[in-house]
């Protein structure tokens, strides 16, 4: 049975350094939760705390309402897939998968049956007598998954499971994991630094940064309504462009914001009156190129990335970083040319001095 997992003000530090600074999270049964964040943000630590491999300094972790802080990993009924897979090199595929059952003294017949079932699901039956060293990366990954699902855990933990695979395999395994989740309906906590994995797999994404939850929500909500500049910048490729700006006054069209680099003032509807520095965030797909003198922003095209389906131009417009603009696949923009960039203020995100989205997210 899938479990509900609850994290109540969970904190942890290593010596002086606070790694997890009070995380609250309620994971519903069968939910697929992805923890994302840059490396060192504490996401793996959090996962290991859920697994029981790390202690909890303060706060409580509850499975189905029952505190598990003092339970050993084995008593929590979790399955875990490690980044390194941690397949035992001295055991065959079958032995690796059967290991947990052997430890649990499941009788041989049932063991055999359950292992067969798992190998079958993961299409590993033909490889059952191979050793991990004889397998490809994707096969190893599947064995690692098989090993953790054979016990039918209530909660399924993945620690960056795809980071050792090449791109094509990663896509394939992503699909497999997704299919598996639909089939087994376990509660899943999945750690990655890859936002594509997060976006494609998650029911809800938890964005972590420096031990703090930045935002929790369904992928698209996070994409479209990031709670702050960090989340906005973290999700989406290429990254959202940021322009330093200044709120200059409130008019009929809304808040007037002047872009510092170009001096162009834009009206932002639905915003309260305010003064001072703000940041405008704009996604590549919401920008269009135009003649330099017509744009809200003008600058030199530093680089053009042609991905086939899309082409992105990176325009040096006087912001913190070049602003990425999605142009049609067929548009030919030479690097070094001077262009203008326009965008619809309604599609823009506005962040205050501290990076919080304006108006504060209410979701």
């Amino acid at each position, binding site marked *: 049975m899938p479990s509900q997992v609850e994290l109540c003000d969970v904190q*942890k530090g*290593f010596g002086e350094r606070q790694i997890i600074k009070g995380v609250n999270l309620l994971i519903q049964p069968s939910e697929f939760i992805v923890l994302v964040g840059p490396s060192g943000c504490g996401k793996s630590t959090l996962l290991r705390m859920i697994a*029981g*491999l*790390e*202690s*909890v*300094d303060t706060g409580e972790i509850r499975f189905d309402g029952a505190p598990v802080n*003092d*339970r*050993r*990993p084995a008593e929590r009924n979790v399955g875990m897939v490690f980044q390194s897979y941690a397949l035992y090199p001295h055991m065959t595929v079958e032995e690796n998968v059967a290991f947990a059952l052997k430890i649990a003294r499941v009788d041989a017949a049932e063991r055999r049956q359950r292992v067969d079932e798992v190998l079958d699901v993961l299409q590993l039956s033909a490889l059952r007598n191979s050793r991990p060293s004889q397998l490809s990366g994707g096969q190893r990954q599947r064995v690692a998954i098989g090993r953790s699902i054979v016990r039918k855990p209530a909660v399924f933990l993945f620690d960056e499971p795809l980071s050792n695979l090449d791109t094509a395999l990663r896509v394939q395994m992503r699909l497999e994991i997704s299919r598996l989740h639909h089939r087994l309906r376990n509660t899943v906590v999945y750690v990655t630094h890859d936002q594509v994995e997060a976006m494609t797999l998650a029911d809800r994404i938890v964005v972590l940064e420096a031990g703090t939850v930045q935002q929790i929500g369904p992928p698209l909500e996070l994409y479209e309504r990031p709670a702050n500049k960090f989340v906005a910048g973290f999700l989406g490729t290429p990254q959202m462009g940021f322009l330093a700006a200044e709120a200059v006054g409130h008019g009929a069209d809304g808040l007037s914001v002047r872009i510092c680099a170009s001096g162009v003032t834009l009206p932002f509807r639905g915003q309260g009156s305010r003064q001072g520095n703000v940041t405008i965030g704009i996604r590549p797909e919401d920008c269009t190129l135009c003649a330099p003198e017509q744009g809200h922003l003008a600058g030199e095209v530093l680089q053009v990335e042609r991905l086939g389906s899309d082409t992105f131009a990176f325009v040096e417009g006087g912001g913190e970083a070049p602003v990425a603009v999605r142009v049609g696949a067929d548009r030919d923009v030479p690097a070094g040319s001077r262009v203008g960039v326009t965008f619809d203020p309604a599609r823009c995100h506005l962040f205050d001095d501290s990076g919080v989205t304006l108006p504060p997210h209410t979701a």
Partner: protein
Amino acid sequence: MRPQWANRGALAFLFGTPAMLGLIGFLVVPFLMAIGLTLTNQKLLSPQDTRIVGLSNYERLLGLTMIRQDSVLGVNGDTGFERVRDVTRRTPRLHGYKPLGQAEFGSTRLVLLARDPIFIQSLLNTILFAVMVVPLQCSLALALALLVNAGLPGQRLFRTVYFSPVVMSMVVVAVIWAFLFNRDLGLINQFLSWATFGKFQPVDWLGNPATAMPAIVIMSAWQGAGLQMLIFLAGLQAIPKELYDAARIDGATAFQRFLHVTLPGLSRTIAFVIIITTIAAFGLFTQVDVMTQGGPANATSTVMFYAIERGVRGQDIAYGSTITVVYFVLIATLALLQQRFFARRAGS
């Protein structure tokens, strides 16, 4: 910080106890006993009760002093010095001291006296052995490792051959080499004589104070180099091949590559090998016991040999223990100093 369940104090205690009991019971306790015995006059095979004698064993072992003598007129008119032993027997303060070394300055001479000159000599012999065997054995091992690593066909076989003396009992090896070193019949003299068309004068390798220790050095290096060779081999193979390729592109000769790539790449390994070889060298015992029994004229008596000679064979347990405790202090200091030295070198 690991979770509570992973704090396995009790379990670690359970797992570690058999080994720790063994180590404490058969290493720590006897060692503490040895320290305790040094303060007594415990003998083997004596019906007399053991007494506490304080530090007198240490005094007997390490006592050193110096006297100055003025020359005196001899019976037949020439000047000379009074025999040191006559002085020490006459002077209560110098009772038990024996001459260790002397230096003359015109009509005076300084004589260094020791309570136990054989111990001092054994100590010097041990240091001499280490000073000779460590460079020889380490460079031999490095040479063998380079040869084995040269990529010639059959290198595995060579590796096995060079290593094979290591697995042999030192007793067996010493018995064979004692035979090889024999003056008139030994193969070494026979070979040297053959190679120099008979010009070579046979040397009584183990019977001459000047050659006995070098002979043991040669045999020990031969016996032990294989082990260090393996360690060097590992070190060599850990040096990235790209560094050699880069050096080649830069036009470095083989010797320059050795100097600027191999040696720096091996620095940690070299430090490790030198430390273990030195510690082993200071424990020299079996070779001496089988081949020379400390002779000739104490030229091969080592600290460990002398300890067994006095402690077990001379039945003076307390004195033998004193020697081993001094030995331990020495070796521990040495190991510590070496580690410091190499650690600092590696750090800079």
